[in-house]
């Protein structure tokens, strides 16, 4: 009961706020404000906001202060924004502030990284383990022409998300590509240097290796550098999950064939689309799909709105993306 008191004063005056701005305000909170990944989400969000006639506020931490995201949310509550969309840095911490927003009647959705389920209505999920795993395996198989040997470099053997991806990779391989063999799974501790070392070891240990798949982002350029230095560029192919910007040079050199990630601009666009419908009441629990003009239909599983299959960046399209 003590919690609700802090927010009650403002609601009496909500009629007054509408004079300030007739457009609904949706506030978008990234994990960190200047990060190229989130700036790209922002440009998609801006496009959606312009189309929907929504005012967009984009603000986030620029420092490493872990309390900053909470403070921004609490300020948005007293600003009486109409909707909040958040990529959560600290799941448990931010949920405290998000529940407060919900209590004040502000709809909350999360994107990129989720909060606790009771602290938001929907999560715009950019990639399911199945989406990531299957796309990686299909792309590997395409490059290997259906047969050969490959090795995986992962972040750590204990990271839950990467283990889930790896399971899906294996599931796809055993179902569809019986002529392909996975020969090794090596951790790189999320370090580029370590990934490069591991890749160098793999190259000498398996002289008939056809492809290295890196499933944590520092490992993609790490593996590429190892292949390049071993003089095996093009012979041993490299694919992985990472940012286009970190891999652009290797892709153009023909060392790395494909980089896989979701389109971050679409993620921002869909987030604002979903938030706008949520506050109009068009998106409610039980809604099964979200239709967006010009982009298609996005399925909803439970309270997760799925962005769909990851996108494959290669030499032909990588220059169109700047994150």
């Amino acid at each position, binding site marked *: 009961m*003590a*919690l609700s*008191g*802090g*927010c009650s*004063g*403002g609601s009496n*005056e909500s009629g007054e*706020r509408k004079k*300030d*701005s007739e457009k609904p305000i949706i506030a978008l909170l990234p994990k960190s*404000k200047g990060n190229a990944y989130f700036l790209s989400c922002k440009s998609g969000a801006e496009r959606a906001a312009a189309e929907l006639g929504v005012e967009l*506020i*984009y*603000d*986030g*931490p*620029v*420092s*490493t*202060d*872990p*309390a*900053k995201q*909470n*403070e*921004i949310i*609490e*300020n948005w*509550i*007293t*600003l*009486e924004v109409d909707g909040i969309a958040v990529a959560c840095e*600290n*799941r*448990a*911490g931010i*949920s*405290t502030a998000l529940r*407060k927003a919900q209590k004040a009647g502000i709809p909350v959705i999360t994107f990129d990284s989720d909060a606790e389920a009771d602290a938001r209505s929907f999560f715009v999920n950019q990639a399911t383990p199945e989406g990531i795993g299957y796309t990686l395996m299909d792309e590997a198989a395409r490059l290997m022409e259906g047969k050969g040997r490959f090795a995986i470099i992962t972040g750590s053997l204990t990271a839950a998300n990467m283990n889930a991806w790896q399971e899906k990779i294996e599931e796809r391989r055993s179902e569809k590509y019986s002529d392909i063999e996975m020969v090794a799974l090596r951790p790189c501790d999320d370090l580029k240097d370590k990934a490069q070392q591991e890749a160098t070891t793999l190259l000498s240990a398996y002289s008939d290796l056809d492809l290295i798949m890196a499933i944590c982002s520092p490992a993609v350029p790490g593996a590429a550098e190892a292949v390049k230095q071993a003089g095996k560029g093009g012979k041993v192919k490299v694919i992985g999950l990472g940012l286009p910007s970190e891999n652009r040079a290797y892709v153009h050199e023909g060392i790395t064939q494909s980089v896989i990630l979701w389109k971050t601009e679409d993620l921002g666009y869909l987030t604002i689309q979903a938030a706008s419908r949520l506050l109009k009441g068009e998106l409610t629990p039980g809604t099964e799909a979200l239709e967006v003009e010009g982009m298609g239909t996005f399925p909803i599983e439970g309270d997760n709105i799925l962005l769909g299959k990851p996108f494959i960046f290669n030499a032909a399209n990588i220059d169109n993306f700047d994150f």
Partner: protein
Amino acid sequence: MKTTANIFKRHSYREIWLRAEALLALALILEVILFTLYGRRFSTWDNWMNILRHSAEIGLLAVALTPVIWTGGIDLSVGSTLGLSAVAFGQLWRDAGMDPWLAGVASVGVGTICGAINGALIVWIRIPPLIVTLGTYSLFRGFAEALAKGVDTFTGFPEGFLWIGSGQWLGIPVQIWIFSCVALMYVTADWKTVLGRNWKAIGCSEQAAYLSGINIQKYVFSAYLMAGTVAGIAAITYSSRLGSIKADAGFGYELLAITAVGLGGVRLSGGKGSVLGATLGVLALGILNNGLGRTPLTMNYSSELGGVLTGALLIGAIALSVRRGSP
């Protein structure tokens, strides 16, 4: 010499007040007017309470740093002390199954021990405060990270404990009461006891203070000890406000607190300034960051502009006080 003599005159408070604090108060009023005019829903009760709630921890640290800085010292470890106390609280409550209130008291004790370590190294081993607290800045944070194994998050606190961080008493957020009590204690120590006068005398001239019979070791030690205790209290309000604890709690808060103290007209080389000034400094920063985030013109750049303006304000304030002859 002149400044040393001034310290012992009763009306010197008024002189100081007329210099730094009055100027800051003016700047504060200007901020409020501008944000009320141009900001959205700035001057609402809820928003004022938000500003105060968000300023509570920096305020506690700034008030506790004031005597440390009076003595001519510095404490860079208060943010890390906050982090270590918070993690200690989390472990005592969750892992050791302690009652949250008891764990809270124990974690304030952890902060006090941190302060005592700083004080002992400075007073008895005679290492300069900057070096000692730069060392303990890493040391305490390192302990916190080791205890929390880097990634452990403590959450799911009982409703009663969360009340400190998000509840109210008589319509005022609980942590503002806590801050006010601590600040009042420091103001009393300054105005009504010899503590404040002796702290400042040490900062003006350690030799003169020593010759006038002040037990320098006792007073310097007490300033650091108390800073540790208050950082422990700040750990409680911080954990309760966020509803979760990680090893990075309070990261960078020492610099924000020192900025507020400097902005509040406390001379960073020691000997001069007031608790009230430091509090005004905290308020000025809190209002600035909040207001920028709700003014349409600055809304999308509030974090960046906040940093730039804070820096400019601090340098401006110090430059003005140098020109007026009270650096």
